[in-house]
């Protein structure tokens, strides 16, 4: 398990919730953790493909440190982007490449969402890692 204390706290928080509705409310709250990608920067290249809502992600690596900006029209998708931001922002490229999407599953978020959505999370996760990989080459 390669996640940070911040992520572990999130996992614990989700695991404490019994009701699916509340879990989704908490997930939506995480949308505030996203550094919002301005609409002028939404384009075909940073569009999240295969996602039903319109979502975009841009990743930067400055002096080895990763930072992502994102936006989505559905609040839950932006919530997932918020989780992802907590997991990657400020980490080193190496740390990000070592991450696996398991933490979302561990938190009970992946299996609480339907496959198309958990795939959406996987897609976003893969997109971030691929971008990091390209940027540090």
């Amino acid at each position: 398990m390669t996640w940070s204390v911040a992520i572990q706290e999130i996992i614990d928080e989700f695991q404490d919730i019994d009701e699916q509705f509340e879990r989704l409310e908490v997930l939506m709250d995480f949308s505030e953790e996203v550094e919002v990608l301005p609409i002028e920067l939404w384009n075909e290249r940073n569009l999240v493909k295969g996602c039903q809502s319109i979502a975009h992600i841009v990743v930067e690596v400055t002096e080895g440190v990763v930072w992502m900006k994102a936006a989505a029209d559905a609040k839950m998708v932006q919530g997932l982007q918020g989780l992802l931001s907590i997991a990657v922002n400020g980490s080193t490229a190496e740390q990000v490449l070592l991450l696996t999407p398991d933490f979302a599953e561990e938190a009970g978020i992946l299996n609480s969402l339907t496959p198309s959505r958990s795939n959406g999370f996987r897609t976003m996760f893969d997109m971030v890692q691929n971008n990091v990989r390209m940027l540090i080459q």
Partner: protein
Amino acid sequence: MKQDFPILSRKVNGKRLVYLDNAATTQKPSCVIDAMSEYYSLSNANVHRAVHTLAGEATEGYEACRKLLKKRFNSNHAIITSGTTEAINLVAHAWGESNLQSGDVVLLTEMEHHSDIVPWQMLAERKAIELRYVPVIDGRLDMEAFDVALDGVKLVCVVHTSNVLGIRNPIEKIIAASKNVGARVLLDAAQAVPHEEMDFKELGADFMAFSAHKMCGPTGIGALLVSNDAFGEMEPFMGGGDMIETVTLQGSTYQTNEHKFEAGTPRIAEGVGWAAALEWLSNIDLESHHKRLLSIASGVKDELIAKGMTVYSTLGPEDAAVISFTHPTIHPEDFARLLDAQGIAVRTGHHCAQPLMNKLGISGTIRASFYLYNDQSDADTFLSGIDRVLEAMA
């Protein structure tokens, strides 16, 4: 009624399942599920051209489905397909290829499901035929435009009941006018057969396509009814076992009945299951359920409007109980997911009708569609579920 459907006693996210995604697919009564299990446990065999007992039982079970279809819908020809989509593609190939020439016109509507648009666009590319679309105004077909567009048309393809809005189109008028100009008519009846009794001969259409899974039957099977005249004009579509009379290296001759269009091992267990669904439905008074569900849906519609939603369905007296709506700020997916968290299943998106969405100026809706086993308690749960979503998102 609910106790006939095992899935309805299931809990979703800890709540009683309220299934309001019936326009996508309906649930199955126990008799359908059991008929298929029994088939596989007792009679499974490949059909036709065999003399052993199991093969006889399997053939009888499968052909019983065809007999029931012919009887229920009063049709001389019932070709079994994998669903509405394959049925329409079958018409585009088996009839369209041999009866439409470059320059001929096929008339569609802006309300069609993708399954009644894309096959014609593909045919139009192959054969250089012209496609025209009857426009939608205020959520209904523009019948004046229809009359004008009909000029010189060879085939009219129209959705009987819209899967997005529940609108039941004036198909009797459409068929009469089309016949007047000598056009053949295809009805996309996917959303019609679940909701009303239909007499194919009396309607006078040439083709009628529908799916079992939207009328309590299994997945993987559907049908195309064909008029006598149109049947005689059709050439085979797919080739293979069961559809031939003789095969030599030089060429083949084909069966003359429906089998001509059913290449390969048919959907045997599915036929048995659909037959059970048709038997079950034959004991249901669709008309009184239609009235009951429409009245429940109308109440829901009023409440949704009162709660600030935009509702696109008009729910006229003949329309199906399908409510498409949006909220001014909440994304349909967030909405649907928060309903799902409360055990309520609705669908979001373009409902395979992007041209209609474009016309309505939106990218998608939330759709609640009611069926036989739904009742006022489902509507109440749905509405209080909506309230909780609105509170949470306030």
